[in-house]
Structures are given as C-alpha cells and as structure tokens.
C-alpha cells in the first residue's frame, strides 16, 4: 500500500468515525434533505394541481376561418385534456350547461372565484370576433378577453399566468393566420408548461443537487481546515514529517481522501433522494458527475485557503462559519434566488456556489441557466486557483521543510 492511499484512507475513516464530523458531513445533510422535502415537497405538486377554471364563450360562432373565439376556446379545452393517463390536465373547465343563461353562469362563477372554488373565470365577450377582425385590420383596439382572478391566491395567480400564455399563443396564431406575423417567432402554448424537459416539477429534484453541494461545501470548508489545523496543533502531522512522507504525497492522499468522503456523501444522499423521495434527477450522468467533482475540488481548495489564513483550528472554524451562511444561502442551494438588493446580488455573483449550483442544475435540466454556461465552470475554477495559490504560499505544515 503506498503512502498516498493510506493517507486517503485515514482521512476518510477518521472523518466517518469521529461523531462530530460524521454528523455534520453525513447525518445532517441526509436530515436536511428529509426535512426540506417533507416541508416543501408540496411546492412541486402545487404546480401539478389541476386548476378549476370557468369558461364562457359569449361570442357568436360563425364557423368560418375568422371564428377566433372558437380557436381560443379550443386552446383552453386542449389544456383540460390529458395527453397521457398518468398526467393530470392543467385545467378542469366549468362551462355553462346546455340552455343555461350565460349571465347567471357568469355571476355564479364570479362568486366561485371570489371564494376560491375557481382559480379563474375566462370570458370571451360578445362581439369578440368582430372586434378582433377590426383590430387586425388596423381599425380598432385589440380585442379583449376578460379574466377574473382572486387577488392574492397563489393558485389563481399561477392559473392566470398560464392563461396569459395560452392567449398570447393564440394571439400569435391568429396574427400568423392573417399574415401579420412571422411564424418563426411564434411562441407555442407548450412553452407554458411549468417544469423541465416536459416532466413535472418536483422540489426534491431541485433540492437534491443543492443538498449534495451543501454537503461538499461543509466537508470542504470545515473538514479540510479541521483535519489540517487540529492535526498541526495536536502534532499529528509533525509525526508524519519525520518519515519519508513528503508534503506533496501527503497532500495527494489527503485530497484523494477528501474526494472519497464527498463520494460517500453523494452516494448516501442520492440513495435517500432517489428511493425515499422519488427524485428522478439524473445525478449519475457523466456531465453531472463531472460537475460534482469540480464542486468537491473547489470546496477542497477553499478548505486549503482557510487552513492557510487561520493560525489555529478554532480560528479556522470561525472563518468557515463566517463564510458559511452567505455562501450557502446566497448560492441558491435550497431555494431559487429571486430579486436581491444590489449588495446581496454582488455577493451572489461573486459566490462560486451560485455558479456551481446553477451549472449543476442546468446540466441536470432542473432549471434554466441563470448565468452563462462558461461562467459556471470558469468562476469556480478561478476561485480554486486563487485558493490554491494563496494556500501554497501561506500554509504551514508544522515543520521547517
């Protein structure tokens, strides 16, 4: 057994045997994945919910090519049908019964929206086809479709945004039909689906890569300086330096051991996410694995940086703690980052975690990219280089070598 693998094995074994490191590097990430999935797992299924929507077409149907009101109606009817048996339709439509007075139906449905029984009420008004014809002929304002929503209700807001996109799609189709629009730029109704790659959105698919990165992050920022500096203070490292083991061989073994620790974390989290919570995200794809290796290496480099900046292990833990919160929460590990004040946005943009999380999720197809693809590799690599250069100059191994 060469010294390198023995050092790697020592790193892995001691981190898994020590109760504190076992908790923070393995038990806690598993626990966090469980808790967050149980609490927020509903986020994804919300979007899978079928929205109850009222629909009234008051326009006079003429059956001809300018029967735009029927086109709009058909688009919504399409949303209320499911293309596969295991997928629920987005909308469940409520329409006036045969012979029912449209006015009475409208009043009843508005009340239903108000109390939350309906997410939306869509009304294609009388005279819609005529108004639309006039509009596309340049002789009038755009024809309006009336949508009633209940303010402040999330289901209402989501259903409305879906309806908006449906109408925008129909709008473009109409413009294309009448020769006013370049079809190559037409958006389609299908793009209104929330989720990714045509699959339904699951919060655990978003969360699992984030928790894996968090586990790597914790192991890198706390585990690396912990092992190096406690080892230096307790003269564990000093014992190595009176043997033929050189620091570069030690470093190779140490880094290998750290990556093995990250691999252990990954396997445990993957198994839990996949088999307990039904995550379908393709973390085992080569691109994803390459990104995970990059992330583990970048956090390892950060660990070396902290080890070189701190004089004592306790100081290193303090530095890691200071970096911990902003780097983790302004990196979008657990929740998507929305609008931020300028200063927090600056932190977010400087944070390598942002790029690693974004790149990994984009590679997995969980979210659409927030930052340019090249940056998801370039920024973390640049950070790693800076960390390694600083650490190589400053890090003390406890011997004058």
């Amino acid at each position, binding site marked *: 057994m060469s010294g390198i693998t023995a050092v790697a094995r020592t790193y892995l074994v001691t981190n898994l045997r*020590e109760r504190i490191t076992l908790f923070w590097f393995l038990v806690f990430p598993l626990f966090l994945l469980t808790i967050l999935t149980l609490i927020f797992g509903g986020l994804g299924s919300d979007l899978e919910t079928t929205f109850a929507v009222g629909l009234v077409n008051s326009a006079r149907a003429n059956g001809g090519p300018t029967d735009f009101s029927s086109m709009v109606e058909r688009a919504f009817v399409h949303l209320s049908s499911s293309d596969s048996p295991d997928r629920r339709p987005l909308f469940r439509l409520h329409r006036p019964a045969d012979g029912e007075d449209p006015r009475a139906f409208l009043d009843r449905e508005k009340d239903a929206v108000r109390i939350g029984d309906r997410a939306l009420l869509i009304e294609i008004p009388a005279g819609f086809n005529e108004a639309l014809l006039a509009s596309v002929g340049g002789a009038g304002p755009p024809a309006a479709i009336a949508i009633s929503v209940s303010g402040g209700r999330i289901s209402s807001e989501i259903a409305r945004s879906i309806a908006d996109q449906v109408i925008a799609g129909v709008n473009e189709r109409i413009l294309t039909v009448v020769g006013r629009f370049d079809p190559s730029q037409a958006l389609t109704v299908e793009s209104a689906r929330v989720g990714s790659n045509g699959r339904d959105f699951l919060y655990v698919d978003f969360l699992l890569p984030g928790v894996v990165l968090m586990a790597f992050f914790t192991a890198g920022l706390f585990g690396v300086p912990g092992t190096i500096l406690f080892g230096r203070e307790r003269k564990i490292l*000093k*014992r190595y330096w*009176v*043997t*033929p083991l050189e620091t570069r061989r030690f470093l190779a073994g140490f880094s290998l051991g750290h990556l093995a620790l990250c691999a252990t974390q990954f396997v445990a989290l993957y198994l839990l996410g996949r088999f307990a919570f039904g995550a379908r995200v393709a973390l085992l794809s080569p691109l994803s694995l390459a990104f995970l290796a990059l992330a583990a290496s970048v956090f390892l480099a950060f660990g070396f940086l902290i080890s070189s900046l701190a004089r004592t292990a306790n100081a290193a833990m303090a530095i890691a703690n200071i970096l911990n919160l902003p780097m983790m929460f302004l990196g979008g590990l657990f929740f998507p980052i929305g609008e931020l004040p300028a200063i927090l946005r600056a932190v977010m943009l400087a944070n390598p975690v942002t790029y690693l999380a974004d790149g990994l999720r984009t590679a997995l197809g969980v979210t659409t990219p927030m930052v340019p693809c090249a940056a998801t590799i370039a920024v973390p690599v640049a950070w790693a280089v800076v960390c390694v250069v600083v650490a190589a100059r400053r890090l003390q191994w406890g*011997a*004058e*070598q």
Partner: protein
Amino acid sequence: MAESITLRVTDLIKHYGSVRAVDGVSFSVPTASVFTLLGPNGAGKTTTLEILEGIRRPGGGSIEVFGERRLRIDRAVKERMGVLLQDGNFEPELKVREVIGLFASFFRRSLPIDAVLERVALKEKESALVRTLSGGQRQRLAVGVALVNDPELVFLDEPTTGLDPQARRAMWSLVSELKDSGKTIILTTHYMEEAETLSDHVSIMDHGRVIVDGTPRELTAGLGEETFIEFDGRGLSDVQLASLDARCGAMRSDDDLVSLETADFAGAMDRLISWAKEAGVPLRDITVRQPNLEDVFLSLTGRRLRE
C-alpha cells in the same frame, strides 16, 4: 580498528531572533551505542534533535550521517531512521493496527505489522482506537511507529517523561535491546538516572550549548573522590543548620534535603553524628552515595537539572 560513527554533528546552530536555542553544539555518536543529551527543560535538546530528525532547518554547522555530509535530512536518510517525538500524536480515531500500517506505508521497507505489535506488547490492543489508550500504551504505540521501518538510527526524545516507574523500566530494557541489536540510539532526558543507566556517552546541555561530555563514569570521576551524605532536613531551624555547616562544612540544603560533600567520609560521619546527638536531630532517611550526573550538572551550573 576505528569505531564507526553513525552521526557526527559539528557546530550546530539554531537561533530564533535573539534566542540562541542551539548555540554551537558538536558531538559524535558511534554505531550501536546509546548517546544521551542530558539537560534541564529549555536547554536546547529537543531543538537539536528536531534538526537531526529533519523537521527544523539548521541555522549553521554541519551534519554527517551514515557516513555522508548532509545539508538537510532528506528522504533517503529518513528511510533509515526512526523517531519518537516528545510531543507527537496519532489520529485519535484510528485503531492501533491502522496506525502501524499507515506509518509502514510511508517507508520503502518495513517490518510486518504483527512483529511491531508484538515488539511493543500491543497485540491484544490492535483493534483499540488510539483515543482509548492509556498514556503508557500510547507511548508504546509511538515506539512501535518509530521502529516500523527497522531503523539503523533511533531518536528517542524524552521517552520516559510522564511514564510510571514500571513503564519507565520497560522502556529502559527496550533501549538496551535496541542497542544490543546493533541500532544507534540518540536519547534526550532530564532524568539523570536514565542517562546514567542507559548511556554509553552523555553530553550535558545548558542554554543551547554542550557544557561537558564523556561517558557517565568519566563525568562523575571529574568530581574527584567525593562522597555525599544526605538526610531528611525537615524541621531543622536555621540555627541548627548553621551549626552543622560550621562543624562539617560543604553543606547544602534544598528540597528539605541536607547534603554533605566530603572527601573524608569517616571524619565527616563522626562530626555529623556528634552534631546530631548534641542538637537532638534524628537524621531521618540518611543515605551515603557516590557523585552522579546531577552533581556534575550542579557543580558546573550551580543549578539542579529539574529546576
């Protein structure tokens, strides 16, 4: 035939700012002998050893080891030496067997793990975690690690500090065995009994310098034909002590131990006993002994080793 020298140190220097930790130390260590650096804490023994072990850079001087002059202790030298650090430690979460295996993997050539475990009597503890070991067991593990590569040159820095008397005697017999098996041993200690019992050569260090060296017998012989008569002096008044000094001369009194140094043992005993009768002093725990290395250090520095 000239005896072969494993290690020769000439004018070794290590200064930290204005502190002269090692200030021109020279000695040679013949192969298959035990060489001891004796001195009080802070004398520079450990710094000297750590330079020779390759974890401190010398500020000056030359080192010749295994017949070659070296600027630094490199990997090739470390392959052939074993080190027991004064303050070294092992990963608390490793098992005893794993520690030996880890260190064995650092060397091109190493002894079988079981042989090392048996050598330091830790075979039955091989699956115990380091953190569960007693102080003596840890020290045995450290010795095992120092011997894992079957070294030709062994450094033992304060090997018995903090050990109970039984463990100390076990360490002494181990050192003798190592020497008998042809290994060269460099030892530091501040216990003069240890130096006297184990060493072929002793260099006494103080303030970064070697103040005297030789075999233990040569060093004590330097004090002449003196004999020491000592007894428990607790409860004696200053007046009583002054009268003793006036009667017998060459009296010292510290740590409640009254000590008379004399070349005329019979005369001194006569005077002491007549003084004791007059003063009514019981002369508890009276001992008579020949000079030891402690006395050598005391006569050279005016201080005791363990002050």
